[in-house]
Structure formats: C-alpha cells, structure tokens
C-alpha cells in the first residue's frame, strides 16, 4: 500500500469509529483529537481496527505515533508497504 492508500484506509476506519464526524475535511498535520470527538478509548479502536483489517500490530508504546493523519501515515508506511490494497 502506498501512503495515499494508507491515508484512505485510516479515513475509512475513522468514519466507522466516529460515524457522526465528517472526516473528509480532516487536516493531516493537526492532531485528530482537535478535529474529531476522539478520546483515549477511541484511539484503541484505531489500533484494533488496524489489527483486524490489516494484521498490523501497534504496540502500546507507539500509540503516540497515531496522533495525526500525517504521523499515522508516516508510522504505518514502512509497516504496510508490502500489503496489497484491499
């Protein structure tokens, strides 16, 4: 998967986790928390959805990397590079 594919995948996950938020206007360099109604419990959902959908394990010490779209894509890109887009 390329960086844009990963971004797309994260948007899909976010729209499932917070269905009432509009994720299409998300700014990549601003933390999710400032743009969406996400709390620490919801961040776990991002991690769990990544595991469920792409078999990607994000250890607890790396959760901070998922703060914004830009940091999430940067973190996941080397880990998802070899995955086929689904």
């Amino acid at each position: 998967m390329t960086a844009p594919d990963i971004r797309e995948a994260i948007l899909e996950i976010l729209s499932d986790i917070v269905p009432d938020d509009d994720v299409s206007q998300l700014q990549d360099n601003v933390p999710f928390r400032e743009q969406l109604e996400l709390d620490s419990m919801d961040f776990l959902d991002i991690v769990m959805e990544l595991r469920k959908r792409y078999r990607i394990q994000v250890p607890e010490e790396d959760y901070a990397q998922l703060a914004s779209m830009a940091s999430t894509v940067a973190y996941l890109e080397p880990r998802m590079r070899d995955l086929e887009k689904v």
Partner: protein
Amino acid sequence: MYDVAIIGAGMSGLAAGVRLALYDQRVVVLERHYAVGGLNSFYRLRGRFYDVGLHAVTNFAKAGARIGPLPRLLRQLRLRWDDFALREQVGSAVAFPDCELRFTNDFELFRADVHRAFPAEKNNFERLVGRLPSYDEVLRLPQAVSARRVLEETIGDRLLREMLLCPLAWYGSARENDMDWGLFSVLFRSIFMEGLARPFRGVRQILKHLVQKFKSLGGQLKTRAGVRQIRVDGKRATAIVLDDGQEIVARRIISSAGAVETHRMLSDAETLPSPAAGNLSFAETISVLDRSPGDLGYDKTVVFFNDSEHFHWQRPGDELCDVRTGVICSPSNYVYTEQEGSLTDSIVRVTALANFDRWSRLSAVDYAAAKEDWYERMVASAVRFVPDYRPSIIERDMFTPRTIRNFTWHENGAVYGAPQKRFDGSTRLDNLYLCGTDQGFLGIIGAITGGIAIANRCLQQSTSDFPS
C-alpha cells in the same frame, strides 16, 4: 479455548462481550440464571412484563450528541442511538417535609429551583457545582473522600446538603451514611446535569440490542451456566468449572459477579481473607393501577422522598425495612413518541431500604406475611409524597433482599455491591478482572461503560498474545 470468558450476562458483562467480539476475540458469556440482565432484568407475571431494576436510565444525551458517556458507549459498541430509543423523563423531585426540589433533563431548571428554595445558598451551590470533578478526574481520585465532608465544607444549610445527598445515595451509594465524593460527582452529573430517560419497552430494549449485537459478532451466550469454581495456579486463573462440572478454558476471565462473590469462586479462596461485602439492600413494591398516574394527578417520573430533615442511609437495624426514605417511580411518566403512545400497564414502584439478614431468616409463611405487611407500609409511606393511588391498584408484586440474592447471587442482596470499588477491575490474579457493580461504575450506562473499559484492557493485552 476462548480468548475471554465473562461471568454474568448483566449490562457490564454483555457490553464487555460485544466489545471483545467486535475485535474477533473468541468470547463466551456464562450466566447462571436462565434470563439475561442480572440486576437489570425483566420478568413476566400473570400476563404482564415487569422490569426488575430499572427506574430510569441516567446520563441521557439527545440523538446526535457526540460528547458524554452515552454517545461514547454507543460508538464503542457500534450501536445506533435508536437502538436504545431513550425517551426523556417528564420531571422528577426530591421531596422533604416542607421543601421540594424539582429537576428535569435541563440542569438550568434544577439550578433555578435550588436558588428559589435556598436563596441564601445560591453561591454555595454554584461553588459545589464548580468543585465537581470531571468523569476522567474521578478515576484518579482517592476513594476515601467523604461526600458529606465536601458538602459540609461547601453548603451551609444542612437541609440542602441532605436533599442533594438523598437522591444520589439512592441511585448508587454502597457506603452507609455517606457516599464517596467521586461517586457523588458522577451521579450528580449523570442525574442532574445529563438526566433521566427510559426506553418505551424498558430494559428489554437495551438487553435485546446488546444480546443481538453480541451474537451477530460470533459471541457465545450460555445461560443456566453458573460458575462453581475458578481454578487458580499461582498468579493465574487456569480454568472455569461450571455447576454441571463442565470445564471452560480461557486466556482471560472477566467476572461481573461481584468482588466477594468472585473471590469465593477461586480455588485458593480459603487461604486468603475475603473482601468485605455490602450491607445495603432494598425491597420494592410494584403496583399496577387501573388508570394512568396522570389521571390521579401524579405526573412525576421519580420522587426521592425523606420524611424528616435528617436523611438516614443505613441498613435498618430493628425492622425488615426502613420506610422513612424511599424512591417512587412511574415508568408511565416519560415522554414517549406519538407512535409509541402510553404504556399498556400503569405502574408505580416504591423502593425502601431493607435488612437482608432479617428477611432471609423468615420462614416461608412469615415471609409471605411480611411481604404483605411491608407492601402496605411502603406504599402508605410513599403516598405522603404523591397522590394516594391505593384505591386504583389492580395488581401487585414485590421484591425483597431475598429475591435479589436468589436471582443475582449478590451477597447480602446488596444491589450496589461492596463499599470498596476498583475502577480498573484488577484482581490479585494477572488474567482475572472484575467488571460491573464492584468496579464502581453505576447505573445502566455506568455498567456498560465499565464493561467496555475492562474489555479494552483485555484487547490491549491481547496484542501480545501468541496465536493458538
């Protein structure tokens, strides 16, 4: 082999089950009773459906709201607002002699009513509201802080202190004569700031969606599956033995049975001191009327009453029940939609404090007589605060501490469990967690939130599991 076995199919156990199944954990929920719901179940008697525990769902949030406990748990369980279909209360009251405070789901009305009834306490009340910790802050508070102490520091008028404490103790204090300040704050927000609601179909509506969701995600629900023992090896629970001898193996176990009740299941329980059980139990009268409460001039949803200036929150010592304080609730007095109409049965419930030991010592004959006697006394006490509905009663039922013990297996019939809570659900075993009443998240929304929190802990840990 399961990833997680959950003991108890109440609100917290089912919610934990949904959350775990959502992320492909192999989950089984084990329930001793033949019905789900635990403390919030329902039953059918002589052709009518009754809720067991539900007076009101607290923590109301309107459809589309994104902040607060209810929107958050709906998100986490991937449920829709319409699944719970909560309808708001008409209005409730705290009734003491010569003083009544009214509240609805609009906090400004309650605030104005406190200002009206206690003009000298206006600023003090605002100081109290300002001191309330947020939900997240409560989790980090020490549990030993007394709500009575904080109230004494903040509010000058003793009557106002008692009138604030009474409804909040009634909806969740397992501690006699006081309550924990964190819990007081949670309940203040849940009841006065967020508000009360109820689905038209009562607790069945919520249970139905939790069970359906759980099963649709592949979760297994076993009823009539009581747990006899949890086998322990060192710091780990290794297996569950059911009442019928069947063994269940799971990587992790979540028990909603209660702290002392779970402790007793452990195979090494005798070698360790038992946690303290709670002492507060209730009796409740359920009266079906031949007309709607509104026709009798009774339009309140919940009335918390106390017949003197002093609020006593303790196990009755000399008698089976204490009717000086109580809660009166009518499920008819919610704003249902036009489509729903009004409830088929007009019901009024009255709850009173009760002494488990005294009720449990009665012979079968004395027990039946005591139920008759206390039904009359509880209703007689209640109608001092609401219109006398006794001539309209066409059907009645009653539960006592004994009923609670028989169907929930809670020690002492303690509805709110043990005084000491564990928000993080941890136990002395690495793979055993508590959720539910003794975790300390109260009410239906609290129980579901607590179950989710423990499930999330299990999910986090499962990321380092070896595949099997």
